[in-house]
């Protein structure tokens, strides 16, 4: 499915200073039974967000109106575990467009990029400062500029560059997806196949 073009985002942040957030937490397996990709946001972080009677847990950040926005800030090694793309769909469907962490699991990172959700990997120091500042001031905004590959704290102007594969960056900025590209090189693929068989 073609992805939405990513333009510069200025938003408040939702802080989740937990490390090793695995995709089973992002979307538990029992919610993977749908055959379409829509609606997973309702069950995003289901077991952290709701108790067993489906009542919101007051101490979970998504249930706290103090922190809102389209930027999720999470601890190291975000998105580990299962390859379920549903995790990226759930975050996107809920409204997140950026996840900031000091480390991302590989498969999650690919899945996010394939769905217009931008993983922004920052240094441990920047992440730690971001957590502190957001906690102190929930109105603090960050600016995520993909073109220039920078994330900036709007209050202090503190800024850091982040890496992204140049090809993926173009895809995100222009809303291209990999299948468009693969279809465009179909002749090369067929040629490769033919030579491989020999």
């Amino acid at each position, binding site marked *: 499915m073609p992805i939405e073009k990513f333009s510069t985002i200025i938003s408040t942040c939702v802080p989740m200073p*937990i*490390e*090793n957030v695995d995709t089973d937490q992002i979307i538990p397996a029992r919610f993977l039974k749908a*055959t379409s990709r829509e609606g997973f946001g309702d069950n995003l972080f289901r077991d952290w967000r709701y108790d067993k009677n489906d009542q919101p847990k007051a101490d979970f950040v998504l249930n706290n109106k103090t922190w809102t926005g389209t930027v999720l800030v999470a601890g190291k090694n975000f998105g*580990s575990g299962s390859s379920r793309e549903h995790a990226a769909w759930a975050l996107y469907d809920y409204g997140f467009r950026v996840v900031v962490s000091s480390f991302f699991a590989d498969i999650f990172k690919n899945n996010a990029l394939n769905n217009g959700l931008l993983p922004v990997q920052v240094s441990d120091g920047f992440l730690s400062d971001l957590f502190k500042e957001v906690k102190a001031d929930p109105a603090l905004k960050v600016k995520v500029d993909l073109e220039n590959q920078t994330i900036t704290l709007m209050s202090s102007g503190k800024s850091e560059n982040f890496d992204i594969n140049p090809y993926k960056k173009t895809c995100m900025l222009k809303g291209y997806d990999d299948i468009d590209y693969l*279809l465009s090189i179909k002749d090369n693929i067929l040629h490769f196949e033919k030579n491989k068989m020999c």
Partner: protein
Amino acid sequence: MAGKTLFDKVWDSHVVEKIDKGPNVLYIDRHLIHEVTSPVAFTGLERRGLKVLRPQQTVATADHNVPTTDQHLPIRDMLSRSQVDKLTENCKKHDITLYGLNHPYQGIVHVIGPELGLTQPGMTIVCGDSHTATHGAFGSVAFGIGTSEIEMVLASQCIMQPKPKKMRIIVDGNLKKGVTAKDIILYIISRISASGGTGYFIEYAGSAIRNLSMEGRMTVCNMSIECGARGGLIAPDEVTYNYLKGREFAPKDEDWDKAVEYWKSLNTDADTAFDLELRYDAADIEPMITFGTNPGMGMKIVDNIPDGSSLAENEKPSFFKSLQYMDIQPGTPMLGRKVDYVFVGSCTNGRIEDLRAFAGFVRGKKKAEDIVAWIVPGSKQVEKQAREEGLVAILEEAGFALRQPGCSACLAMNDDKVPEGKYAVSTSNRNFEGRQGPGSRTFLVSPLTAAAAALTGKITDPRDFL
């Protein structure tokens, strides 16, 4: 010229093109699909008006979402049923071979690939499941992909991937009594952490790896993702060829000889550098168990639970949150802790050798009364073999029943859910919060350690029985 690693040889021979400052376009030999991560890919394909480019290179099975009892009846859970039906419909429409429920080849996707000989050295293999690394045990480059990537493979038989970095983990020496392949990989992950392998593809080498059976090698490669690595692989050798020979889809006759000749070239050249190389001594490995909520939180079963004092300040909150979820105290022993459930199965330890190990251990003994045990074969063929070898009779004599094949309590999408607050000793691969059911608590172990717990109702060193 510097040599090439096994990984380089397989990867490089499948690169259709390299995008400047971008990923490689990688050709995929074998694509495995299942009911949970494929439906949206087919929808996407149809929305674009595309057909599956090479339907004969994709094979499907139903495993994640299926019940492990009464498989001859319609699936009761309507959502699960509709997902399995959707897979059947998609396979029919696109001419893809499906080993669905009740087919003699049905089973966990990573168990059936090898046992049918679909998995072969030198192949690129992908599946919408992170444990696809299992197939690396044959010297293939195998890794898990997301649903967008499944759609890419269906449409073009290719995916776009940056080439990972290379790591080699060498385990030399002889394993001690009661120590299995599962303990090797739990040990490695406990040493390098749940994220230590991220960005890498791991080659496992050394005499302790070489001495493992194919089943054991699969167990090791299977959990590569649990340290963050996209995949893991082991150079093929006589053990590999002997396992594959005569299997349904393995090459036959002259093709076999040609294939083996090629497979013999699949090893890492002597003068090759890795981005990272780690060495462990097999003699240092003991029966392992996890105590926390990621697979990196593992320890020797005889040790006390770490107290977290050696951790960096920013790591402590997550560590203690994890222990709080597990309701266990730092500094206390694992041995003797009461257990409620025992799960033997999954793509990590649901193969015939695992059932043999478990049955051999409990033979002539009795299951602890207050333990609920789920023994789930990895496939219909494993189930059949277990019956033919008399393992089912041994299990039943000891108070255990063999269920029907599927992923079962590994991810608890079906009814096999560990209840809230209960402790499960599990041969599966993930101890995440709620992985085996909302509120469930998991200790990952080998089949032998699972057997010991099933007999005593407590966490027990399997060596006490050996």
